[in-house]
């Protein structure tokens, strides 16, 4: 039974991921992203990582996708017409795709996958319980949490500086152009 569920939800996740990239409508892309995240979180549930599944829904599906939708609607993006691919792009992407398939093939053909019972038993189990997880965040992993706070500070400062309009228009703006390429 779990195997069938795994295949169903993997297929759903992959289909949604393809839809995310292939869709021309930005809102539809964002909604496919949402479906994709739901599929992944079901896979996490089947791995007994309930907390991770819950956080994925809460943070990504809840907050991030909603934010995407807000931005898409605020900026009123329609996707528009994509110019046809250049020849170089097609050649380069075919080479990259062929390399990727070759790499994946050799990985599956020659790599040995072993489910090491010992390693599985040793896997740290404290991320399953929310209480222990919270305690870890505020003790052992306190410093990384603080650092993430600084990351948010950089992001905030950057957004303020870059999006703020100059008070007065400069008379002699820089005459520099992005030309001069070889």
């Amino acid at each position, binding site marked *: 039974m779990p195997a069938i569920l795994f295949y169903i939800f993997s297929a759903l996740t992959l289909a949604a991921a393809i839809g995310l990239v292939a869709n021309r409508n930005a809102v539809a892309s964002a909604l496919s992203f949402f479906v994709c995240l739901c599929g992944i979180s079901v896979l996490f549930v089947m791995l007994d990582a309930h907390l991770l599944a819950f956080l994925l829904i809460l943070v990504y599906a809840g907050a991030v996708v909603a934010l995407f939708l807000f931005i898409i609607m605020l900026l009123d993006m329609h996707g528009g017409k994509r110019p046809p691919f250049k020849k170089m792009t097609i050649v380069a992407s075919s080479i990259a795709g062929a390399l990727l398939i070759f790499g994946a093939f050799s990985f599956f053909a020659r790599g040995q996958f072993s489910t090491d019972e010992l390693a599985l038993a040793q896997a740290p189990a404290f991320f399953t319980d929310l209480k222990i997880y919270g305690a870890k965040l505020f003790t052992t992993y306190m410093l990384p949490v603080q650092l993430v706070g600084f990351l948010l500070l950089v992001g905030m400062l950057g957004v303020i500086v870059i999006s703020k309009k100059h008070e007065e228009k400069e008379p002699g703006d820089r005459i*520099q152009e992005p030309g001069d390429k070889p």
Partner: protein
Amino acid sequence: MNATINYAELVYALRPEIALTLGLLLALGYDMAFGRRMSDCARRGVAVLIGIVTLASAVFQTLHTNVPPVGHAAYWFHGAFVYDTLAHGVRLGVFGLSALTLLLIAGSIPHSALRTPHFKHPAEYVAIQLLATMGFSLMAVSNNLLIAFLGFELASLSLYVMAGFDKTSRASAEASLKYFLFGGMAAAFMLFGFSLIYGMTGTIVLPEIARALAVQGPSPLLLVALVMVLVGFGYKAAAAPFHQWAPDVYQGAPAPAAALIASASKLAGFAFFARLLFSGLGTVSGDAINFGGPAGWIMAVIIISAASMLLGNIAALAQTNARRLIAYSAIAHAGIMLLGVIAVRAEGAGPLFYYALTYGIATIGVFGVFAAIERTAPCQRISDLAGLWKRSPFLALVLFVCVLSLAGIPPLAGFFGKFYLFAAALYLNGLMSPAGWLAFLAIAMSAVGLYYYLVILKAALVTNATAGTSASTEKIRVPLGTVIALATSAALTIALGIWPDVVLGLFK
């Protein structure tokens, strides 16, 4: 893991970072409270002053940290931090380099102030630079994948903003966006690689990873993880084939930001690179001494290094834009520093650190000269440098010293950096080894590099600004802050070349 947290130890370990945090809050708070009533010039001066004082206090805190003797390391906070000579040196190095780049924006000439619109928000600029410096410092001391990644991202995010700080220039916006897109992609790869390593070993502490991998041995999954981690570091180091962002960023970013990207960011990146590869993944390094040894990351690093040297030096020959030329030369230098990473096995991290430090100092000198010229006229094409000798003998002299150091001419620091690195690489097993061949390639490519460095110097020192060229003939007045930064970098380039043991002695 379960022991109680020793907060005193944490504060001791992170004193320089705490100083930086306080300094950036002070810079932001002061500007918010008093900035509106001050002139642009005074605002900039105060912000830079706060930044310099903060970096000086961070240096002071670092100097008052106990450094274990060479070959030993102190571990803090349950192994999250490691402190040894390399960490100590890199911390001092990034604070110093950051202070030098900060001086480049100090001071302005009143009547040409409209040439520097990118410093409309000096307090924010200084604050972001201090955050970037904090990221570099964390990368230098982290012994743990999680903290290293966060330090890496803190530095990267700050640098993206700094590259796009000049809002009146389209090139700056382009630089920032390209840097961001490449950086985001590379960070995703690296994080994926880290998570695979964590999945295989069950730990994020580097020495424990090494222990677990020594038991497991190389596996296909580990190779995938290695490749992903190398993508992330290749991007940080601007090594081919992950270099595409470098020319555009060096060209478009404001000169002080480009100088920081080229100097302190590289020093911290290579320090953590060497630490991760040797103390974390050292047991799966493969063989640099013989051909046909076991597979490992050394072979991949050798290939990236050779590709960077070839591409950087040859593409630099074709450049007409001075900043893009410096960018391609930076790619070539990244290749040599990757050779230095391999040579860490023979001679320790001393030669690599010396090379990255002196390279950073010389690059700041070059970008400082560009920044000073830009105050009166655009400085992008090599022909814009024409007649520099007449316009400002001081700038021409600094450019002369720094460019010759980049080219590796004795007795400047760049020559000894190359010399010690190549010697260390050859110590591994002479010329008939992968590392030896790479050192040979590096020597050959240095000769190629000499040509384009001399092209810059010819434009600046020999060519006159005639009516046909775009260069202006106006005299350049260099503000005091820039004079201090440029004089310091030129003097250090000469002094470290004459007394390399000042730096290398730390590692002996």
